[in-house]
C-alpha cells in the first residue's frame, strides 16, 4: 500500500469522515482511584513516557529509565517535589526610560529595545524548559502562563517590558503548585498584569473594566457566574493601582513594583457578587488597607461566593491540559472529583495534580496519546530528544505559539488549532532540519543510549517508545526497521552499525524523517 492509498484506507463508515459522524462520547470506566499496574495496564516505557510527555516537554530516555525504577506514585512524587530554580537572566533588570516626550525616532528605538529584551527573555525560558530537571514545575508554569496571560505587545499600543514579564513568570513558578487564591490575589496587583489589562490606568473618574471582567470570565469562575454590574463594581474596587516600569518616573515601592495612588481610588461603597463593601474612610484609603480590605476581600469573595464554579472552572482547564483537550461524558465526573479535592484543600492545587497524575484515569489506555502536541512540546521536545536547540523560539512562533505573547487574553486555544494545513508542513520541515543537523557522531550517540541497540527490532521499539506515544503496531515496526537497515533485513543492522557507522547514521536520519512526519508524532 502506498502512502496515498493508506491515507484514505482507514476512512470507514462511522468515522469522523462520514457525514453522520457524531463526536466521540467519552465513556471511560476509570476515575481518580490510584493507578495499579496490571497486565493490561503495565508500568512500562509507554506509561512512563506518557507521564513525562504530559508533565514535561517530552521525555529523555534516561528520564524514562529513572522513573521505571520507581513505582508510578513515587515517579509522580519525584516530578512534583523536584524544584526548578532557573538562573535570573540579565534582561530581568534592564530598566529603560518611558516614551513620554520622546520624538518618533527615539520612540521606535525604545520599542525596538523592548522587543529585543522580550526576545531574550523568551529564549531564556526556552532554555530553562529545554534543560529542566525531572520536574513538573516548568510545565505547570507554562500552564499558568496560558491562564493568567500577559501579552508583551498589547495591540501595538503598549508593551509589557521584559522585567515585568520576568517577575510575573517567577510569580507563576513560585505558586505553580500552590494556593490559587493567593496566586489570583498576587496576579491582580502584578505589575505586568496591571499594564496588560488596564489596571494601571483604572481610576475612579472613569473605571476601566478590562481586568475586572477577565478575572471572572477567564481566570476564575467562567461565564454565566456574574452580572455586568459585578464587572462594573469590581472595576471600582480595583481603581488606584499603578506599575512602576520606567527609570524616569517615581517608583515609590521601587522599580518594577506596583504602588497605590489614593487619589485615583474610588472609596465609595460597592456591591460585588452579593457582598457589600462599605465605603472606605479617608484614613483607611492607604496602600496597605485597601490592598487588604478591598482587593483582598474581592478575591476572597470570588473564591467564597463562587466556590464551586471556581473549582470546576480551573479543574476543567487542568484536565484539558494534562489529560484530554475535549472532555465530555464521564470525564465530567473526574473533573467534579478534582474540584472537590481543590475545595477540600482550600484551593491549593498541588494535591489535585498529585491525585490526578497518580490516578487510573490518567493512565487509562484511552488517554495515552490523545493530546495534540503544542508547538512548545514539539520544538523543545526535538531539542530534548535530538539535541537540536537552534531557533527554538522562532520555530515555535512559526507554528503560532509565542511565549510571553499569546494571541489574546484567553491564551492559546490549543487542541485542533495546533494542526492546520499551514502548520503541519512547518512541523515536518522543522523536524527535517533538526534531523539533518544531527552529525554522524550525534546520531551514533543517540543510538548508543538504548540498550541492545545492535538489535534493530529492539532499537526501533525503544526509539518508538521514546518518541511516539503508543506501542508500535507490527506494520509500523516493520516499516521503521526496514528504513534503519536501508531496505535490507533486520539482522543486517549489527553489521552496519559495527562496520559502517556513517551508513547507520544516515539510515537513522532517514528513519527519523519518516517517524517525525507521522500523525502520532504530532500527538502525546
Amino acid at each position, binding site marked *: 500500500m502506498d502512502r496515498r492509498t493508506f491515507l484514505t484506507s482507514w476512512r470507514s463508515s462511522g468515522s469522523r469522515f462520514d457525514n453522520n459522524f457524531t463526536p466521540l462520547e467519552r465513556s471511560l470506566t476509570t476515575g481518580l482511584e490510584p493507578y495499579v499496574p496490571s497486565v493490561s495496564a503495565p508500568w512500562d516505557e509507554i506509561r512512563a513516557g506518557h507521564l513525562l510527555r504530559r508533565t514535561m516537554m517530552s521525555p529523555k530516555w534516561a528520564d524514562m529509565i529513572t522513573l521505571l525504577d520507581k513505582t508510578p506514585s513515587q515517579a509522580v512524587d519525584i516530578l512534583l517535589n523536584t524544584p526548578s530554580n532557573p538562573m535570573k537572566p540579565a534582561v530581568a533588570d534592564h530598566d529603560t526610560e518611558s516614551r513620554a516626550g520622546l520624538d518618533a525616532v527615539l520612540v521606535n528605538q525604545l520599542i525596538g529595545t523592548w522587543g529585543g529584551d522580550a526576545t531574550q527573555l523568551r529564549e531564556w525560558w526556552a532554555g530553562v524548559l529545554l534543560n529542566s530537571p525531572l520536574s513538573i514545575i516548568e510545565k505547570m508554569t507554562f500552564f499558568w502562563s496560558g491562564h493568567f496571560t500577559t501579552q508583551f505587545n498589547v*495591540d501595538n499600543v503598549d508593551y509589557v517590558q521584559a522585567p515585568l514579564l520576568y517577575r510575573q513568570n517567577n510569580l507563576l513558578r513560585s505558586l505553580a503548585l500552590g494556593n490559587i487564591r493567593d496566586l489570583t490575589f498576587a496576579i491582580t496587583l502584578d505589575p505586568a498584569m496591571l499594564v496588560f489589562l488596564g489596571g494601571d490606568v*483604572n481610576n475612579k473618574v472613569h473605571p476601566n473594566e478590562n481586568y475586572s471582567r477577565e478575572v471572572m470570565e477567564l481566570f476564575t469562575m467562567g461565564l454565566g457566574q456574574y452580572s455586568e454590574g459585578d464587572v462594573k463594581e469590581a472595576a471600582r474596587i480595583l481603581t488606584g493601582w499603578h506599575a512602576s516600569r520606567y527609570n524616569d518616573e517615581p517608583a515609590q515601592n521601587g522599580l518594577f513594583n506596583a504602588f497605590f495612588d489614593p487619589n485615583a481610588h474610588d472609596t465609595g461603597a460597592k456591591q460585588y457578587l452579593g457582598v457589600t463593601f462599605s465605603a472606605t474612610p479617608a484614613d483607611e484609603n492607604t496602600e496597605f488597607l485597601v490592598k487588604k480590605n478591598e482587593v483582598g476581600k474581592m478575591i476572597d469573595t470570588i473564591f467564597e461566593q463562587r466556590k464551586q464554579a471556581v473549582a470546576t472552572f480551573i479543574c476543567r482547564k487542568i484536565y484539558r491540559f494534562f489529560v484530554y483537550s475535549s472532555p465530555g461524558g464521564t470525564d465530567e465526573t473526574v473533573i467534579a472529583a478534582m474540584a472537590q479535592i481543590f475545595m477540600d484543600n482550600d484551593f491549593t492545587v498541588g494535591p489535585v495534580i498529585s491525585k490526578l497524575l497518580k490516578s487510573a484515569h490518567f493512565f487509562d489506555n484511552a488517554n495515552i496519546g490523545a493530546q495534540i502536541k503544542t508547538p512548545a512540546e514539539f520544538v523543545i521536545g526535538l531539542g530534548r530528544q535530538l539535541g537540536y536547540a537552534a531557533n527554538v523560539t522562532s520555530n515555535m512562533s512559526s507554528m*503560532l505559539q509565542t511565549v510571553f505573547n499569546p494571541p489574546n487574553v484567553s491564551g492559546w486555544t490549543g487542541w485542533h488549532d495546533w494542526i492546520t494545513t499551514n502548520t503541519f508542513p512547518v512541523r515536518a520541515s522543522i523536524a527535517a532540519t533538526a534531523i539533518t543537523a544531527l552529525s554522524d557522531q550525534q546520531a551514533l550517540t543517540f543510538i548508543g543510549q538504548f540498550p541492545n541497540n545492535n538489535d534493530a527490532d529492539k532499537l526501533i521499539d525503544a526509539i518508538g517508545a521514546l518518541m511516539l506515544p503508543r506501542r508500535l503496531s507490527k506494520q509500523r515496526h516493520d516499516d521503521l526497521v526496514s528504513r534503519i537497515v536501508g531496505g535490507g533485513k533486520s539482522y543486517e543492522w549489527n553489521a552496519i552499525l559495527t562496520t559502517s557507522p556513517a551508513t547507520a547514521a544516515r539510515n537513522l536520519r532517514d528513519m527519523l524523517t519518516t517517524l517525525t512526519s507521522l500523525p502520532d508524532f504530532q500527538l502525546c
Partner: protein
Amino acid sequence: MKRRSFLKTALASSATAPFLLNGVEARATSPLQFLAQLPTAAEDDRILIICQLFGGNDGLNTAPPVDDPKYYEIRPNIAVPKKDCWNGIPNVYLHPALTWGDKGGIASMLQQGSLAVVRNIGYPNPNLSHFRSTDIWLSGINDSNVQSRLDTGWVGRYLSQKYPTFPANLPDDPLAIQFGGFSLALESKVGRMGIEVSDPSKQQGVISANDALDDQSAGTAYYDEYQFVADIAARSDKYAQRVKTAYASGKALLKAKYQNDSFGKQMANTAALIAGGLKTKVYVVSLGGFDTHVTQTYDSTNGAHPSLLYSFSDAVAQFMYDMVKLNMADKIIGISVSEFGRRPDENGSFGTDHGTASVQFVFGTQVNSGIFGTQFDLTNRDESNDLVYSVDFRSVYMDILMKWFGMTIEDARVVLKDDTLTPISVIQAQHDAVQQPRMSKTDFSITSIYPNPFRDQTTIVLELPDTETVSLEVTNLAGERVAEVFMQTLAAGVHQIPISLAVASGSYIVCARTSKLIVTKAIHCIR
C-alpha cells in the same frame, strides 16, 4: 425555484415592467443581453469574504452620530469631530480613516454603490465576553445558555450540507481558505471545511502516515485525534501545489497597491488566489486589535482605532479595485464581523469598554448599497448602559445564504438553527443584478415601514432629496415581483405611502427605485 422557471419570470417581468426609468443608465435591457450575462452570476462561482475584526470594533466612532450632541457629551476626549467626518452622502457620516488611501477607502465604495453600512447591528441578550460573543457571531447561533458549546460555524454548516461527501471526497480546489489561525466560522460536524494558508507562495504539503492504528486504539480519543491529524496532512498534500500555482498566476494580474501590513497582505493574497482561478467559495481574513480599552485615539482622528479602520478600509478598497479591473467583482461579496461594539461612554483611559451594537460593512458590486439599520440611539440603553441593537446580524447571514448561496428560507433557517429568522436585503436579488444601475450618492431612503409585520395594510415612508420619479414594488425573497405599487414623480421630502397587499404570510422586500438608486427593505406578512 428551478432555473427554467426563474428565467421565465425574469424575462416576463423585464419585458413588461418599467424597471429602468428615464432611459438613463439602461444596461442589459434586452433579454438577450440579460441571458448572456447570466453565467457570471452563477451560484457556484460566487465568493464570500469574511473579515474578522477581533476585539470589538467601536461602531460609534466608525459611523459617528455627529448630529447628536449627546455623542460629544459622553465622549469628551475621543469623539470624532463632525468637521473631520466623511460626508459624501447627505446625513451619512463616516470616520475619516475610511477615506484614507489612494482608492479613497470604503467611503468611496459607498459613493460608487458597492457598500452597505448596517448600523446598530447586534443580537438579543448580548454577551460582553470577547470569546463567547465571537463564538455567537461565527457560529450564527445566539444561545444565551453560556454552558452550551458553540462548536460549528454557520459557513461550515452551509458547506457541509452542500458537499455531503466532504471530506472523503475532497473537491479539486479548497472549499474555504482561512488566512492565519483557525476560524470557528468554517467548522462543521465533519471538521473544518477549509484549509489554512499563511503565505500562499510557500504553501507546503506533508505526506504522512504509512501505517495505522492498532486494535488497542479503537474507540479511544487517540484514534479520533490520529484521524484528525492524518486528514489535515491529506488536505495539505492535495492543495499545496494548487494554491501555489493559482497564487503565482493571479499575483501577476493585480494592479492595486496594498499596504504591507498583515491585513493588506491577506487581502492581496485573497485577490491573487481569486484572480488565479481558484474555485474557493469562502475566504476568511482577520484583523485584531479592536479591543480599545486604552488610548483608542490620541487626537480626534489619529491613534489605534483610526489606524485599524484604515488598515481594513484601504485593503478592502484595493481589493475591490483589483476585482473590478479583472471583471470579477460581480461574483464577490464581503462582510465584516466583529463580536461587539464599545460602550457609548468613554472610560478614563482614552478608550472604551466592551459594549453591544456596532456597525457592519457588506461590500461588493452586488450589495444594495446604502445605509441600513437605525441611527445609534444614545438615550435608549439597556441595563448595562449599552446600546440596544436594531438589526440582528443573523438577518444578514440569512440574506447571504438565500441570495448569494441560493438557499430557500427554510434551508437557511436550518443552517442558522432558528426558524424565526428573516433576511435583511443587503444583497441585490441576483436575477436582476445585471439590470440594476450602480448606485450614486443620495440620501434617498425608505425611512420606515409600519406596521411591520403587517396583516394586509402597511405604510411605507420614503425620503427624497430631490424631485424624482419613483417606482415602488414588492418582491418575494426570491426576487419575483408580487405587487407593483406605483410609479410616479414625487417631490423632495418625506412621503407616507399606504399600501394594501393580498399576499401569503412570509417575508417580502419593498423595492423603491429612482434613476439613481434602488433601496430595499424587508417586510413581513402575518395572517
